[in-house]
């Protein structure tokens, strides 16, 4: 839209030059005087009592400065669902019991990493192995080993969502399908592993640098675990080498570094190894899915019933949110008049499952979109038409749950239909599969129990007209610093290069819940916009007085020009007005504050984005191997603030979500992850990456800054489903469990052949 002078332009990220020259500094690069290096000893058992830890030999090693165990902690349990103490269940440094292979039992600080590593071998831990359970379907059975005291049947949490009368509606359906699916796990594989430098001064205050998606959460969780005031803790967010949902809970690197530093009053740095990253951080939640879907002959879907059992792993983490969101997004993006969801998260003796980009929705979208295609087949209706018939529209209320304002799903369906038609008749063994999705622009939930606004920002204009933005938002690579700077520049009427942003430093930035749930463009964006508007108002008041304009005129600022809206040629320089306004304010820099907390926006999110994806695959029926040929996505995320950023989010999501459908997996044996290295964990590399096309749909979200909404996570949802549907279109086999590997395709082809032969006989 041409009315904007900054928004919608293809700009370099504000930190781009640093990143392409190697001068960007990550926590990984932080070195401090007198700094020590830490390493963590982890449990080799999936479930065991700790009988004794003897650290004497390790402490005697030259170069070792401290060895800590759970006894050196306050024995508190951390959890991000702080409102519910029973869900805060992770000690990080275990005192009495370990619950998965990788649970931390001790940590060492030494003069270098090699010495710290050597010391780990000298710590003697006596374990009493306990019976363990790995699959949630076993863990939920009577008599299964109990992983947390007092938790019956290992059920960590359950969630119920319901509207309409599902049972009555099924009675009225012409056709009902019941299907079972299994969704696998996935590792975040951030290129920068979890790391932290923690530094306690002799004054008892903590300063920490860490690769994180939410400095505020880390600060608050540190305060909980160390029994400190949060104001005595300063968390810095440097450049962050990826997050994808893995970096907003207090992790073992952060906690152990702090415990060691507290003992020594020296900075301690811990960088997790890649193997630890795979085995001892969190991961995407595997889910067993049971779906029942009922429709009328004409394709009107009347009822959906969803039951889910998720593999929780050892602790709650953000898994409770994933359980809720997978239930809510199982209804997306359709208007089910009757809907019922029951989900159970079950503790197991495996690495904890938690948040990962898409947050439960990639699972629900894979299973839902697979089943929808089967329903379309059953009814003899075109899959796109079936989605059109039931798809959400603007101003739709999800009964009792959510209100959807902007929604461009139908335009997306039209575009994708056009795209498929354009491909004409496909070569043999090629297929195009379709998948539709929606996602939230930030969550409304406050299980963290923050007393602060969800987002807040300060904007300051200095004497030279340059603008400083302070926000607790965290840029983990998704480009929020650029997006927020653009929003500030647009609102204030200056250029992008006039804005400098300080983000994620709890010492100077107002609290913000951080980068998760696709919340920063909308929530942090609104806070920044309001803060900038407050500054602008001060300039405009002064300018109006100075210009002696008739009070019926409105003033505005665009591209550094303060002017009358109706007579833009009548104006004054922004820079002059800034100087004079500051003089008029007794020399005080111009400051604006803004905040955003959603109110009266339902229970989930203030806004939702939508899209439809078409994936083309080419299957080799001899081997089951297939190639991702092309992925075309029609999507809408409201006003596009940063087009280059959105393209990056979209293509990157296809790499990650395509990987979820195509190859990524974490096979286990008795709780041990078998592929904890990048060599063995298969992800999409450049040669596997399909061609990607984007069809942008214009929408405007009234709740978003300048009409914008999320684009970071929603795009992670559709791809696995589109791939599954494409494989079916190509060779007629349906895969019900992720990832869709060549082995599974081949097995299904052979089974199909067998059935065909049988039928002929």
């Amino acid at each position: 839209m041409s009315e904007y002078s900054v928004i919608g332009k293809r700009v370099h990220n504000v930190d781009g030059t640093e990143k392409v020259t190697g001068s960007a500094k990550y926590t990984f690069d932080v070195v401090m005087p007198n700094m020590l290096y830490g390493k963590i000893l982890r449990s080799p058992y999936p479930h065991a009592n700790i009988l004794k830890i003897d650290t004497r030999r390790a402490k005697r090693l030259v170069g070792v400065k401290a060895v800590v165990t759970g006894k050196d902690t306050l024995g508190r349990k951390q959890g991000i669902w702080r409102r519910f103490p029973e869900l805060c269940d992770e000690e990080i440094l275990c005192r009495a019991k370990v619950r998965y292979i990788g649970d931390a039992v001790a940590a060492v600080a030494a003069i270098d990493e090699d010495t710290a590593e050597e010391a780990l071998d000298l710590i003697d831990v006596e374990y009493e192995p306990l019976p363990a359970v790995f699959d949630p379907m076993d863990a939920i059975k009577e008599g299964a080993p109990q992983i947390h005291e007092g938790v019956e049947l290992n059920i960590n949490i359950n969630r119920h969502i319901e509207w309409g009368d599902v049972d009555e509606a099924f009675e009225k359906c012409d056709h009902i399908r019941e299907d079972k699916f299994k969704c696998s796990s996935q590792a975040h594989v951030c290129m920068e592993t979890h790391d932290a430098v923690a530094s306690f001064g002799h004054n008892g205050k903590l300063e920490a640098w860490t690769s994180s998606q939410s400095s505020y959460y880390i600060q608050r969780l540190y305060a909980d675990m160390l029994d400190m005031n949060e104001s005595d803790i300063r968390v810095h967010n440097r450049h962050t080498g990826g997050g994808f949902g893995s970096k907003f809970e207090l992790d073992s690197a952060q906690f152990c570094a702090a415990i060691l530093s507290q003992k020594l009053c020296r900075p301690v740095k811990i960088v997790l190894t890649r193997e630890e990253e795979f085995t001892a951080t969190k991961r995407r939640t595997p889910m067993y899915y049971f779906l029942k879907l009922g429709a009328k002959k004409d394709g009107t879907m009347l009822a959906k019933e969803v039951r889910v059992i998720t593999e929780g792993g050892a602790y709650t983490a953000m898994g409770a949110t994933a359980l809720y969101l997978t239930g809510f997004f199982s209804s997306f993006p359709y208007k089910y008049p009757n809907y019922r969801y029951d989900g159970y998260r079950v503790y197991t003796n495996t690495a904890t499952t938690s948040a990962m980009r898409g947050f439960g929705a990639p699972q629900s979208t894979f299973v839902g979109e697979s089943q929808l295609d089967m329903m379309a087949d059953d009814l003899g209706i075109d899959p796109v038409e079936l989605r059109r018939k039931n798809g959400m529209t603007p101003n739709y209320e999800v009964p009792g749950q959510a209100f959807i304002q902007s929604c461009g799903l139908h335009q997306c369906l039209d575009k994708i239909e056009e795209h498929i038609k354009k491909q004409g008749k496909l070569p043999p063994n090629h297929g195009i599969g379709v998948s539709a999705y929606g996602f939230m622009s930030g969550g409304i939930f406050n299980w963290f129990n923050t007393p602060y606004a969800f987002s807040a920002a300060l904007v300051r204009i200095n004497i030279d007209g340059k603008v400083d933005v302070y926000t607790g938002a965290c840029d983990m690579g998704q480009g929020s610093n650029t997006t927020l700077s653009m929003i500030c520049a647009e609102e204030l009427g200056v250029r992008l290069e006039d804005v400098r942003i300080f983000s994620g430093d709890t010492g100077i930035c107002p609290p913000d819940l951080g980068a998760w749930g696709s919340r920063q463009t909308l929530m942090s964006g609104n806070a920044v916009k309001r803060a900038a508007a407050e500054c602008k108002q001060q300039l405009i008041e002064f300018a109006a007085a100075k210009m002696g304009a008739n009070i019926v005129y409105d003033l505005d600022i665009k591209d550094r020009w303060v002017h009358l809206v109706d007579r833009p040629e009548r104006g004054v320089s922004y820079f002059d007005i800034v100087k004079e306004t500051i003089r008029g304010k007794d020399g005080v820099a111009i400051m604006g504050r803004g905040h955003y907390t959603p109110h009266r926006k339902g229970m989930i999110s203030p806004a939702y984005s939508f899209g439809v994806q078409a994936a083309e695959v080419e299957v080799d029926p001899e081997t089951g191997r297939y190639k991702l040929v092309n992925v075309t996505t029609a999507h809408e995320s409201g006003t596009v603030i940063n087009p280059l950023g959105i393209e990056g989010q979209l293509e990157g999501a296809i790499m990650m979500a395509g990987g979820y459908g195509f190859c990524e997996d974490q096979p286990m044996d008795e709780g041990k992850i078998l592929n904890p290295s990048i060599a063995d964990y298969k992800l999409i590399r450049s040669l596997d990456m399909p061609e990607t096309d984007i069809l942008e749909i214009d929408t405007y979200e009234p709740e978003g800054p300048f009409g914008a909404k999320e684009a970071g996570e929603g795009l992670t949802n559709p791809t696995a489903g589109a791939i599954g549907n494409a494989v079916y279109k190509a060779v007629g086999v349906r895969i019900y469990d992720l990832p869709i590997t060549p082995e599974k395709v081949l097995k299904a082809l052979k089974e199909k052949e067998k059935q065909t032969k049988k039928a002929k006989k």
Partner: protein
Amino acid sequence: MKKELKFKVNGQPYDIFVEPKKLLVEVLRDLVGLTGTKRGCNSSSCGACTVMLNGMAVKSCSVLALQANGAEVVTVEGLATGNKLSPLQKAFLDHGAYQCGFCTPGMLMSSTALLAENPKPTKQQMKEGIDGNICRCTGYNSIIRAVTAVVKGEYKEAK
């Protein structure tokens, strides 16, 4: 026992003593002080530590520092001349071929080495050139677009 290592990094000669087991990536980061080169796996499978050793792209986590004795090493810090970015760096910026930026130094070094060896690679060759580098953010296609733009000569003046 430390041993002498004489080598050039980004044109600058260094004469230092290192332990024989030290990896090139460790010496570059910890002793030479160039932290642009990253380390993502320490097992030569992610490519974040890629540097050029005598003109060839190598993973500096799988090269002993002493193997670089007498060699010329170029790291990401050696790509720009003063404040002038190399054509590839400029193209990476224009095409959004980075997000978190942690893999970017390695990506730039692999693509720089590719173009040094083959100034007119096909798209397939470009993909092969960065196949040893993992990027978890961009999905690679923007990187291929950036390299393509350089190959087409769109950044000649930046030299």
